[in-house]
Structure formats: C-alpha cells, structure tokens
C-alpha cells in the first residue's frame, strides 16, 4: 500500500518482483506501465517534462484510494509516478495491484488511471526538436 512520486527512474521489474513475492497468496497481480512515446502526431519527442504539485497529488491520490477501496476489494497496491525530465522509452507511471480475483484488480487499476487523467496534479510537456507543448487533457 504505497504511493511513490519520484524524479529517479522507475525500476519496475525489481518492484514487481518484490510486490509479487510479498503478495504470494493473491490469485491475481495486474500491472500497468506507462512510458514516454517516441513521437506524438508524427512529431519526434526529444524529452518530456513532468511537473507535479506534490502535496495535492498525494492528497488527491489518497482521496481516490479512499473512495475506490470502499467499492473494490483488493489486497495490496503500489502506485509510482515519475516527474522531472524524461526521455522516450522511460517509465512515467507504474501501477500494480494484488487481489484475490482478477476482476477487482482490473477495476482498481483502470479507475486509478482515470484519476490520474482527471484529478491528480501532474502535467506533461513534450519537447520536440524545435518547439515544446504542454499536453491537453485529451492527449
């Protein structure tokens, strides 16, 4: 049950290994890894800046979890989101959830992703070769 926002690279394999062995009695372990894409609408992405309002991001994530855990029964979760300056291929977000059955895990992970799209205070800017652009909500 951890929330981690960090500028350091997300080392997901190590994390998944520890998480899965810690939750040895869960029937289902689902993970989502979101990465910086190499391009957006054919524009090559050089780097991506991710900005965070950390106090609010943490507060809103906890709020989201509080609501969600009333409805969905899961056994453990881990939420990691990186910020700072990232390169294409690098990991932005890593979510893992352990649950007895898979159904709850899929609901949990997709709902958390929706919260990150709608409420949790991170902003992405893509830096191209000769320009840069803050992403809109729909991207």
């Amino acid at each position, binding site marked *: 049950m951890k929330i981690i926002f960090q500028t350091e690279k997300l080392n997901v394999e190590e994390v998944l290994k520890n998480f899965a062995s810690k939750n040895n009695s869960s029937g289902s372990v689902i993970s989502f890894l979101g990465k910086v894409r190499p391009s957006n609408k054919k524009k090559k992405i050089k780097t991506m800046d991710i900005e965070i309002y950390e106090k609010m991001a943490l*507060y809103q994530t906890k709020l989201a979890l509080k609501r969600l855990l009333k409805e969905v029964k899961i056994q453990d979760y881990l939420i990691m989101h990186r910020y700072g300056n990232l390169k294409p291929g690098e990991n932005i977000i890593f979510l893992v959830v352990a649950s007895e059955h898979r159904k709850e895990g899929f609901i949990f992970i997709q709902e958390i992703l929706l919260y990150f799209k709608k409420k*949790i205070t*991170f902003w992405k*800017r893509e830096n191209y070769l000769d320009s840069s652009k803050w992403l809109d909500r729909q991207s």
Partner: protein
Amino acid sequence: MKILYFAKIKEVIGKSEDSITINEQTTVKDIVEKLKVINESYKLAFQDLKNIKCSVNCNYIDSFQTKVTNNDEIAFFPPVTGG
C-alpha cells in the same frame, strides 16, 4: 495567503508562487481580478478562466465564487495530464 501556479500558467506568469494578504471573505474570483492587474503576463495567464482549475488546500473548488482566507493555500493550473 500562498498562491501557487503550475504548468503553462506558471510559464506565462513567469513565477511559481505569490504571497498576498487579503481581507476576510474574499472570493477566488476577487483574487484573480487582483492578480490580473499586476501586469500583462498575469492578465494573459488568467484570460481564459474556463480552462483554469483552482484548488484551495488541495481540494478542487466547484466555483470561483468560493471564499478563502489568508490561511489558505490556493493553486491555479490547467487540467491535469498525468498517468
């Protein structure tokens, strides 16, 4: 009161926070009006309020008519794009 700016709004204004003192019972809308007269950058940053989100003490507000006090932390930012 502490006022924070993020992402594009921060860029346009050219700084990440302000500290101002207000009278009791001021609305967020009043604060925005106050900020807009500082200079052209603020005016530009706040010109399209419907694309600006605002939080008070980390809670999203429903309306810019929300009242705030000197102890509150207010933030202005575009819709989030994380995940």
